[in-house]
């Protein structure tokens, strides 16, 4: 009805300023080190499925070395004054800012996310996180009144592929500020920005062994989790793996924080600013191809406005540009991996088999690479699998509701509890809902906002512990 006719020409971000090596080694004890077993794996551009670089695969022998280096470094790093620690972290923040565009391009290349997002969201937020926690390093006593916080020791950090550098920042910055040393493993499909970060950390002069970055897949992660000299595990990823880790470290001295899956409810009331709510729905589910643990993947629309909202939503979906992640006009980039694409496609099949009514934006998808058109499912209910399970892709399940109590009950009717959204212009209704929704983060009249100062994390099976803000310090300290 309102089809856009003006097609924008390609506006690719320039890539000639980025420096990428053909081959990346492990960053252990302040040196780029070849893996003991000499094995490497390829990291792939998901928009073309072409190889970008080969990356070392760390085995338990390498993890031993990394943990050993971190343990040795802990002695000096934990004794260093907070002021000095903070200065290193500030320096890392600045170096990221200086090379922000290079990071953004590599992030989009390696992970498939639109350059608009990596440039405007991922990379600046990552730098901000270092900047925020740098300032805490010499003020920790004020964060925990009447207690004396101490660093925990060697921290093993395992991060996902959806926000590679940002997740590295969320993990590293508070751990460093509190005086821990770290072995960090990026996801196997998106290791490059973490390895570039290793270069920056090296340039920053951070004492060797304080941060060690090792690459590999699940087995590498398991070697970190099970290493006896690791004192704490911080994991972001799927709920299944989170449960496995919680079980694996049972009976050990290891501390744990988990940031796991979600199935966020996004609730639109009839008295909402409809047009902005529609924009909020788009942002809630299609941000980063829906590869977002806190995505608003369950939409609840009040029945009186359901048709209007769905029409507007479909209409808006038609203007989304799916394609080359490096094109500045791209709204939705590539699905991160073939495997993830299969998962998403499988869920779409399940949705269809369960009788859901599908709507997909009529957009041209590139022929090479991994792509998924923005997708809605109508006529689904709480008992549909696509409503219950985390899909981690651009697939939205839409349900309608009539009353406030009904929608609160349905929104909370999930084992997850990470995020929720509420759209209404009625102030009391906002506070009523934000209090009743079981979630670690509630967005009212907005969605998918993040900030270094703002604690983020889940309840129920979405994990425990917070990242960001004052509350993000606690997972990295211990008390007498």
């Amino acid at each position: 009805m309102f089809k856009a006719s003006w097609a924008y020409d390609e506006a690719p971000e320039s890539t000639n300023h980025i420096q990428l090596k053909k081959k990346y080694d492990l960053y252990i004890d302040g040196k780029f080190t070849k893996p003991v077993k000499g094995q490497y794996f390829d990291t792939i551009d998901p928009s073309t499925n072409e190889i970008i670089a080969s990356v070392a695969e760390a085995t338990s022998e390498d993890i031993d070395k990394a943990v050993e280096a971190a343990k040795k470094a802990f002695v000096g790093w934990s004794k260093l004054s907070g002021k000095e620690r903070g200065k290193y972290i500030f320096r890392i923040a600045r170096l990221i800012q200086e090379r922000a565009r290079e990071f953004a391009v590599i992030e989009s290349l390696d992970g498939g996310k639109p350059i608009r997002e990596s440039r405007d969201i991922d990379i600046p937020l990552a730098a901000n996180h270092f900047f925020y926690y740098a300032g805490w390093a010499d003020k920790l006593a004020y964060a925990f009144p009447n207690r004396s916080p101490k660093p925990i020791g060697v921290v093993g950090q395992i991060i996902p592929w959806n926000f590679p550098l940002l997740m590295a920042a969320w993990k590293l910055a508070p751990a460093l500020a509190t005086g821990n040393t770290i072995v960090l493993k990026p996801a196997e499909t998106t290791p490059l920005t973490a390895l570039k970060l290793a270069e920056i950390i090296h340039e920053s002069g951070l004492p060797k062994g304080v941060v060690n970055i090792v690459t590999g897949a699940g087995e590498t992660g398991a070697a970190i989790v099970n290493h006896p000299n690791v004192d704490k595990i911080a994991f972001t990823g799927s709920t299944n793996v989170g449960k496995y880790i919680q079980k694996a470290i049972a009976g050990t001295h290891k501390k744990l924080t988990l940031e796991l899956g979600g199935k966020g409810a996004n609730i639109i009331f009839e008295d909402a600013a409809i047009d902005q709510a529609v924009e909020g729905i788009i942002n809630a589910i299609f941000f980063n191809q829906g590869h977002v643990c806190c995505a608003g993947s369950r939409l609840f629309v009040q029945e009186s406005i359901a048709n209007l909202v769905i029409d507007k939503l479909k209409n808006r979906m038609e203007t989304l540009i799916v394609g080359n992640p490096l094109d500045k006009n791209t709204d939705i980039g590539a699905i991160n991996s073939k495997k993830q694409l299969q998962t998403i496609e499988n869920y779409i099949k399940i949705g269809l088999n369960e009788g859901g009514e599908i709507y997909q934006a009529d957009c041209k998808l590139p022929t090479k690479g991994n792509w998924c058109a923005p997708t809605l499912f109508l006529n689904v209910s709480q008992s549909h699998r696509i409503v219950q399970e985390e899909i981690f892709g651009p697939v939205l399940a839409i349900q309608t509701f009539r009353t406030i109590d009904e929608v609160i009950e349905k929104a909370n009717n999930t084992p997850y509890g990470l995020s929720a959204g509420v759209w209404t212009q009625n102030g009391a209704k906002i506070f009523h809902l934000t209090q009743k929704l079981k979630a670690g983060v509630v967005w009212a009249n907005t969605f998918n906002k993040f900030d270094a100062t703002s604690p983020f994390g889940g309840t129920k099976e979405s994990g425990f512990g917070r990242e960001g803000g004052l509350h993000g310090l606690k997972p990295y300290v211990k008390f007498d």
Partner: protein
Amino acid sequence: MIPNLDNLPVYDTAGVNERIARFCSRSIKSNSKLEGLKLALSMVDLTTLEGKDTTGKVQQICYKAMHPHDTLKNIPKVAAVCVYPAQVAIAIKALKGSGIQVASVATAFPSGQSSLEVKLLDTKFAVDQGANEIDMVISRGQFLAGNYQYVFDEIVAVKKVCGQAHLKVILETGELDTLDNVRKASELAIYAGADFIKTSTGKIQPAATMQVTYVMLDAIKDYYIKTGKMIGMKPAGGISTSKIALQYLVMLNEVLGEKWMNKNYFRFGASSLVNDILMQLVKAETGNYQSGNYFSKD
């Protein structure tokens, strides 16, 4: 009949700003940029609205309207020239045969603080002088006092006097305070018979913004969904560079789409915009960044 203003959509400024940011982050390059610049040029209502306007001045801008930059091939003329009622006859004469419309402001422009009688006479004078388009102002005082019926009736009355001339209704959004008010005023204007709704007189700051334009486009969209009738949109004032104009066009493209992407349904009320577009077009052709010295003022 006056529309029901109680159940209008409301607007959340932060949300509108976010959407605007998305439009502004579109990167318009190569052919799509040339296409956009030419389209924008064709949509300009080249405007002079000054107390000191004279025959000479009006003739100069009329010539500029017809010959924006003769050394550039394949560029469109502007859509219209917009003047005070007293200058309409001069413009009509100067633009004869060019196909360029003559728009006249009316109704005690810019404040609208006069009697309905005077406003109707003002309008009638402009129409009689030959204006094809009338840009009226709404009574903002009455609007803010809650006298919506008054505002509505006034527009209906002016529309009647316009006859064949197109009616653009200026909301003067810079005085309406909130986006919700902008929507309300848009609704009144559309239902009272406006052919176009227009943001500003250019005499009040802020003039056109993408935020208010967005809300007005949304009103146009909803009216089209309801009635199938297309209303035009004219942001005016403050749109001085090609970059801003292209951002407006991105918004138009993504909100209302192809049917509105022409001068029959979208205009820019501007003056200095024309030269900036021309400089961009010449730059695209020659590869060199341009100087104002090479582009005629009026």
